[in-house]
């Protein structure tokens, strides 16, 4: 009996270590520097984490089919710029309309990625590297290489989603993220779409045997990813009260990093949204804590890199243990 009990604790530790580590981290930092857990600080960390997490939710879909998307940052820049340009130059009246159009335009970007990968047969990592360049070009063209800030729009409405804090501390962004996360998790876990996406990534060959149309789901995955990155971009613009071609740059690698971390949470090697969110929270906390403690900000990169390596090592160990054949 003793042996099985021990195994269970071990297992739980390995599954939930990301959550445990995040909580422990927060506690330790708070002990060293109590202002870390100040309401204002916490809500600002959550805001930042949500922006990454929303884009990561999209990337999770692409990773579910077994590919990557390197154009996430540029799509975000595009949609952030799009909404600014639409409202600033009066092409569209009304925030909601601009919001919707910006996000829908990202569908075209996703379609481009899907075309390069599925139709032309270019490996996704290369195709999206190339398309990142192309999207950047479009964004630069759109914004005429400027960054629009505090433009001719009603700032109150524009920054509503990004800067409002409910009850004084809960960022509106978190609500938005929650809604998206719930929808996406539901989609991925409970619907046929989700099952098929994971099936394509799980074993393309087996999909042929059970009659799942790989191409269709690959296209859908890229479309979803671009749309969600678009949402993130628009929200970013809301937070910053402006946007330009560089809006998404910082998020490019963050999304991938966050998904890699998230893949070590519960699902052992499969990218997932709760994990990605935890990952964003953890990374944001690390960045924030480093500053709070008084270390120069670049230490966050080292910390993040080390956490990533540790996370993957654990994940690799779990997977090796779990698979017999």
């Amino acid at each position, binding site marked *: 009996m003793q042996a099985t009990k021990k195994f269970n604790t071990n297992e739980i530790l390995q599954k939930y270590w990301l959550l445990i580590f995040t909580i422990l981290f927060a506690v330790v930092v708070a002990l060293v520097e109590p202002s870390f857990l100040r309401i204002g600080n916490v809500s600002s960390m959550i805001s930042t984490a949500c922006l990454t997490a929303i884009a990561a939710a999209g990337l999770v879909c692409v990773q579910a089919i077994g*590919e990557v998307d390197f154009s996430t940052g540029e799509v975000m820049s595009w949609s952030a710029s799009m909404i600014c340009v639409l409202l600033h130059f009066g092409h569209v009246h009304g925030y909601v309309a601009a919001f919707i159009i910006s996000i829908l335009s990202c569908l075209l970007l996703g379609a481009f990625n899907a075309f390069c990968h599925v139709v032309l047969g270019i490996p996704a*990592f290369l195709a999206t590297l190339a*398309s990142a360049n192309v999207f950047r*070009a479009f*964004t630069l063209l759109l914004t005429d290489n400027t960054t629009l800030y505090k433009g001719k729009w009603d700032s109150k409405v524009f920054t509503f989603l990004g800067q409002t804090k409910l009850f004084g501390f809960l960022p509106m962004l978190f609500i938005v993220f929650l809604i998206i996360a719930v929808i996406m998790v539901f989609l991925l876990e409970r619907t046929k779409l989700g099952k098929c996406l994971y099936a394509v990534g799980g074993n393309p060959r087996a999909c042929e045997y059970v009659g799942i149309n790989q191409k269709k789901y690959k296209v859908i995955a890229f479309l979803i990813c671009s749309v969600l990155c678009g949402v993130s971009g628009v929200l970013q613009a809301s937070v910053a009260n402006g946007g330009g071609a560089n809006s998404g740059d910082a998020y490019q690698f963050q999304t991938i990093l966050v998904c890699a971390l998230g893949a070590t949470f519960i699902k052992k090697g499969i990218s997932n949204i709760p994990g990605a969110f935890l990952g964003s929270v953890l990374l944001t906390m690390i960045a924030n804590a480093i500053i709070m403690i008084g270390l120069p900000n670049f230490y966050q990169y080292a910390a993040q890199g080390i956490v990533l*390596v540790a996370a993957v090592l654990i994940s690799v160990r779990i997977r090796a243990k779990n698979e017999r054949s």
Partner: protein
Amino acid sequence: MAKKTETSKISVRAKQTPREFFTSWLLLFAMLVICVIFYIANPRVFSAGSVESMLATASMQGIVALGLMFVMTTGVFDLAAGMKSALAAAIVGSMMAEGFTMGGYILAIALGIAASVAFGVIHGVLTINLKIPGFIAALALRMILQAVVALLTKNTVFYSNDWGEQFKVIGQGSLFGIPYPFLIFVALCVICWFFYERTRTGRHIYATGANQTAAAQVGINTVKIKYISFIVGAILCAIGGILYTSRNFNVCVQQGLDIQMPAMTTVLLGAAFWEPGKYNVPGCFVGALFTVLLTTGTFSIFTGGLWVNALLQGLAFLIALGLISRTMDGGLSKVNFDM
């Protein structure tokens, strides 16, 4: 059965089909066409100063690309290459700030290269021994190196008055108008070409990436070869980074981040040139010149030039990739993105 064939009748390599010939020279051809177009549009693109600058930039980018090429040949998508180059530069920069004289430059440079090699080996350990997916290991290393370089450069654009004027010479000097970096680049290209195509180790690096099983079957020690590719790659990246610092006379974290994408583009474009489907040295050479020319040209000609540059880079990339997938069977080494 044992007859000796007349050596004069042996053909080492068959002639390429017209289609293959066209594909393999397309990049160079495209570059020449673009040269002509740019010249017509704005002759100042080819002024002496501009050409000097382009050659120098292409060289630094190209040397890092050579380093990247060796690692990518064995199938590792090295996102940390740029930072390895910045690391070497940072070490050199901070050591010189401690007041090294001419002789000390050699030591500083040697240490810079050694540091880069050390991280190359760490990358190898992570990927080969600990079996962390190569892509993730590169991502993590990139971040860690960002911190290390920031530490060394005191998180700013680092420059010190203690850097002697002699340090500038290598990066900013020129011989009959040809910048030293370019001469070094050409020299390195020649050396790398010989190493990659005409030594056993270099050929084994390619073989390990192309078909590891075949390499193992003929007795090649694939683990050792992979480590060698990491080390050689790190050395080249280091040289590129140090040149960059010498030329700009400062070093910063951004340097490493900025050079990553151009180097990556160079290597991948180069794979569409000369021997489509295989990373190669002439390809890196032409690819570096091509991307820099494109960037410089579009900036000079179009006043809002940024977008044109990005668009053309992206399109060039796509065309190159399309060509590679269409012409070559068993082409570029497979890159793994499993988590």
